[in-house]
């Protein structure tokens, strides 16, 4: 919402520097997004075009003789051709410093002297139009400064951000009311008087509301002798600066009244409305209408329409008028509508029709039904100034209007919510200047909500108004004390530690997009059928929620490889999404940890897993080799099992996926379901007494077929070693001629140590044999001599 200071001052004598008033509006909740002060620019004067001559030596420049005020022709070289003799134009005289810093000097252009510059609107800061010279209209004095004559010298333009709960501030009057209340100066809403002809409106027009819930009030007036011409300069200027393009006198007045009073209005060419009859009803599903923008619209049963005396739709209520009754150049009789429409109806219509306008934006937030008669009179007064006459009387038909809320505001409640110590009188003094009428009894202020504040329904709404005008800055700051100590949960701490461990071990954390394209999923070797899709994605690249962290990590690897970043060690912790489990509404959402090392084989992934497991303190997980894990290397991958549950995968990325992503070298891969992993951690590990007895080391090497997992042998050794086994470590794997095909020699170092005695050679031999027997009897493995 853009407002001009001069316009605000027509309603209230607000004072202050432009910046001070800007701050005040911001602190009232109307945030100033920009502020422009108009320089008086006294050396830019109104000049009249006296003659137009071609430049003898240049096609793109013409010679313009203007009257700069003294009647003597002054020659200007000009690159624009849109003016005609007699036009009034802005002339920047010699010595003028333009807003862009350029100084105007007398100079020769291809041999012809130019004694100044004719300006476009944009060049002097009056809008964005830089196509051609700004042709001025209205009664302007030639030779006098332009800005002063159009009322802009020293004026200030504020661009305000208006919140959805401030429909009142969608108007110049509303902004003025709020600012005046803050400054403690009087706000006056004028009563515009209209001189009427003897003709009665009842003889020329009538309005029937068939749908009282849709239309709460319909106010109409009729104007005759309307000249659809050009608006006066000051009005064009205000509209332009406030973001609306001047079009014609009738449209301009319509927009002007909307900006000023916040109530949109609509005009009909009365001669195109049979019998001057308007009706209001809901549309029939599929009903068609050609709107002002010459589009054919198909309506839904929920849309409101204006109909003529044949029940034919001639406009969409509150959203856009119809083409059949549009004001044209030949229009001289105008039927003016200022109606109150149900907010939700307009919101639904404008959304379903894809038609959003300044008018629908205001209706959606709720307009002031009480200002309607004032608005028709303001409209008529403005057009009367341009020669129109106004038919006697106002049509004022009511539908269902909401009752004006009367809200009890408990003084202790106000102070309890705000942390203030306001008295009932102080509260009244804050509310009355912004239109609430109040009466006080005991500790309750009973506030009647003004019609321009449809957002205020409940006590809390009024408390916000009290806070706003008391001033948020005036409320003393206090800090409440939580009765509990702040803390992270142990899972949150464990997650942080896990991340810190990985970073400490050289892995960089990445945060790729959680969105994928179907192709990302397919390229990674994953199933694209059971994924969660976004219903309304902006792009195909963002149409799927990742089912796994793999595609995102691969995309990061591919990106970095293409930027010559060398080998990478990366990790990510993030959510994945699967289709909802049976009986669930939400997707199967899980937090996963992924670790990837490029240029490394599965051993790096295994080392990563060992690091993760050790960091968390998980000791009982086992790896089970698998050749069917989607996205992973068919002969170099294993599942991580913990307490009978699969909690992750470790190995290498499928070479096919790497090729599809154009990734070179191997990629070691580890992924773990974080919640399952952390659930298995031991938070308070019991102390195991460190034995002071001497220990002995023995090595055992077994010939193990390739299809027997080393981990299975190790588990047997651990079990057989029992209490005497202090530690075990796999230290060698040998494949080669001596062990033959499809097998390898795997060697473990076992440290034997009893808790309570020195183990003798005989003791050690017993344990050793027990271990060998156990392995050989349970697995197709035999001791290697």
């Amino acid at each position, binding site marked *: 919402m853009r407002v001009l200071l001069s316009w605000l001052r027509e309603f209230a004598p607000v004072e202050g520097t432009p910046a001070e008033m800007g701050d005040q509006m911001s602190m009232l909740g109307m945030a100033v997004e920009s502020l422009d002060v108009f320089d008086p620019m006294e050396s830019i004067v109104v000049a009249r075009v006296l003659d137009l001559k071609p430049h003898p030596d240049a096609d793109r420049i013409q010679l313009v003789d203007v009257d700069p005020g003294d009647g003597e022709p002054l020659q200007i070289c000009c690159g624009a051709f849109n003016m005609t003799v007699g036009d009034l134009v802005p002339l920047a005289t010699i010595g003028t410093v333009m807003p862009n810093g350029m100084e105007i000097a007398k100079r020769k252009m291809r041999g012809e002297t130019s004694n100044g510059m004719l300006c476009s609107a944009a060049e002097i800061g009056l809008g964005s139009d830089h196509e051609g010279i700004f042709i001025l209209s209205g009664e302007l004095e030639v030779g006098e400064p332009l800005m002063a004559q159009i009322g802009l010298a020293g004026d200030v333009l504020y661009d305000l951000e208006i919140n959805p709960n401030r429909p009142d501030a969608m108007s110049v009057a509303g902004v003025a009311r709020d600012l005046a209340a803050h400054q403690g100066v009087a706000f006056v809403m004028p009563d515009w008087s209209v001189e009427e002809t003897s003709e009665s409106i009842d003889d020329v027009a009538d309005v029937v509301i068939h749908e009282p819930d849709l239309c709460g009030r319909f106010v109409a007036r009729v104007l005759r002798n309307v000249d659809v011409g050009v608006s006066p300069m000051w009005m064009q200027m205000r509209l332009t600066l406030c973001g609306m393009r001047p079009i014609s006198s009738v449209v301009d007045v319509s927009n002007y009244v909307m900006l000023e009073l916040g109530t949109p209005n609509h005009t009909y060419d009365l001669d195109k409305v049979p019998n001057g009859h308007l009706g209001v009803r809901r549309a029939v599903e599929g009903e068609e209408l050609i709107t002002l923008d010459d589009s054919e619209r198909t309506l839904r049963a929920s849309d409101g329409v204006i109909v003529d005396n044949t029940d034919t739709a001639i406009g969409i209520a509150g959203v856009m008028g119809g083409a059949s009754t549009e004001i044209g150049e030949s229009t001289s009789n105008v039927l003016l509508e200022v109606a109150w429409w149900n907010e939700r109806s307009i919101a639904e219509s404008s959304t379903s029709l894809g038609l959003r306008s300044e008018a629908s934006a205001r209706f959606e937030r709720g307009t002031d039904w009480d200002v309607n008669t004032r608005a028709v009179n303001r409209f008529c007064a403005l057009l009367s100034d341009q020669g129109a006459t106004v038919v006697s009387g106002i049509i004022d038909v009511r539908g269902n209007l909401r009752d004006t809320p009367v809200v009890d505001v408990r003084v202790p409640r106000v102070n309890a919510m705000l942390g203030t110590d306001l008295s009932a009188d102080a509260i009244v003094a804050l509310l009355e200047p912004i239109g609430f009428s109040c009466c006080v009894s005991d500790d309750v202020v009973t506030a009647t909500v003004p019609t321009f504040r449809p957002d205020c329904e409940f006590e809390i709404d009024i408390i916000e108004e009290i806070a706003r005008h008391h001033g948020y800055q005036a409320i003393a700051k206090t800090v409440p004390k*939580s009765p509990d100590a702040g803390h992270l949960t142990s899972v949150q701490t464990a997650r942080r530690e896990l991340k810190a461990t990985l970073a400490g071990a050289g892995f*960089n954390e990445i945060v790729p997009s959680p969105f994928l394209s179907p192709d990302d999923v397919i390229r990674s070797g994953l199933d694209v059928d059971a994924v969660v899709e976004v219903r309304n994605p902006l792009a195909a690249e963002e149409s799927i929620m990742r089912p796994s962290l793999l595609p995102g990590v691969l995309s*990061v690897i591919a990106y970095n490889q293409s930027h010559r970043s060398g080998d990478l060690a990366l990790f990510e912790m993030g959510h994945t999404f699967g289709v*909802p489990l049976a009986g669930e509404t939400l997707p199967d959402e899980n937090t996963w940890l992924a670790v990837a090392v490029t240029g490394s084989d599965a051993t790096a992934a295994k080392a990563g897993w060992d690091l993760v497991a050790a960091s968390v303190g998980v000791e009982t997980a086992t790896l089970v080799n698998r050749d069917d894990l989607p996205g992973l290397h068919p002969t170099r991958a294993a599942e991580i099992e913990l307490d009978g549950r699969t909690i992750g995968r470790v190995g290498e990325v499928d070479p096919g996926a790497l090729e599809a992503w154009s990734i070179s070298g191997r990629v070691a891969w580890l992924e773990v379901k974080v919640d399952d992993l952390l659930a298995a951690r031991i938070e308070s590990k019991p102390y195991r007494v460190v034995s002071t007895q001497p220990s002995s080391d023995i090595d055992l090497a077994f010939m193990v077929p390739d299809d027997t997992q080393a981990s299975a042998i190790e588990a047997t050794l651990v079990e057989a070693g029992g209490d005497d086994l202090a530690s075990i470590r796999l230290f060698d794997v040998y494949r080669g001629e001596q062990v033959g095909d499809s097998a390898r020699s795997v060697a473990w170092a076992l440290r034997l140590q009893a808790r309570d005695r020195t183990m003798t050679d005989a003791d050690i031999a017993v344990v050793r044999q027990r271990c060998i027997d156990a392995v050989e009897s349970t697995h197709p493995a035999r001791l290697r001599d």
Partner: protein
Amino acid sequence: MSVHDQIEDARAQALSRVENAPDLDALVAIEPSLFGKKSTLGGLKRLMGQVDASERAAIGKALNAAQQAVREAFDSVRVTLAAEMRREQLETERMDLTEVPCAPNLGHLHLISQTTQRLEDVFVGMGFTVSEGPEAETDWYNFTALNLPSWHPARSMWDTLYLDLGSGEDVLLRTHTSPVQVRVMEQQRPPIYTVCPGRVFRRDTADASHLPAFHQIEGLVVDEGITFGDLAGTLDEFTAAYFGESIKSRLRPSFFPFTEPSAEFDITCTICEGAGCQTCARTGWIELGGCGVVHPNVLSNVGIDPECYSGFAFGFGIDRLALMRHGISDLRDMFTNDVRFLTQF
């Protein structure tokens, strides 16, 4: 030759041998021949019985003095030779440390993790817990429970991404972490002091300051007698703790359906510290986030009596704080995951 002369002679000889020892090994090798019983001075000691009793004291004294002089000389030379030997050894070990290849094998947490943890730590210090919830949410938790029924025009304040899960309740990608607040209030009775960091989503085209997925932290306090002044004070305390004492906060009226009174939360521009610069559009303030007193309808929706309890909530972007702290002008740079970016922080 008198005994005295013999002592003097032996002393001079011993001192000469000590002083002429070429290195520490040679010195240590002659030690027994200087101080043992077989040494010259040791031999003279054995003669003590033969000298006249009247002279014994004086000779004894002279002998001791000689022996002490040799010991002192020996110790002194040993220290000198040892030091020399160490010096020679060290010289052979000389290294140019600047020729050592530099390869720190340290990984880096992503800026989002670093910033989130820093924020969590500040709030934990202020007595808050940290709450989490799903990124995909039902319409109820993301909107309706927050005083945003389906017809509410303010829903258009959020461009929402919906998931396609077939029939049933609308499931969407949360547009804020407020649904976590609702879940906390459903599961826990007041007092509640918690922050909810996490990833949130908007139907936005990626540009320098927007991404369809970004990060937010929200805070919620519900307790007896919580006021708007408490909100202002808490944000002030947070601002000072996170940004430093020179950065102040202020609240400006705003609108959110789930809070009333609602406010925008501004802080002193961290670039110019309030003097006015390009970053803050010469206002001296930058907008950090939104906040307000929890709307009574929100409390009622989760079964908390708004007449007994009140609360406040606030929220702001984590990504933007990371950008501000490190002077990153394009949000997308943070999520390209280029290791040359990641390893800077």
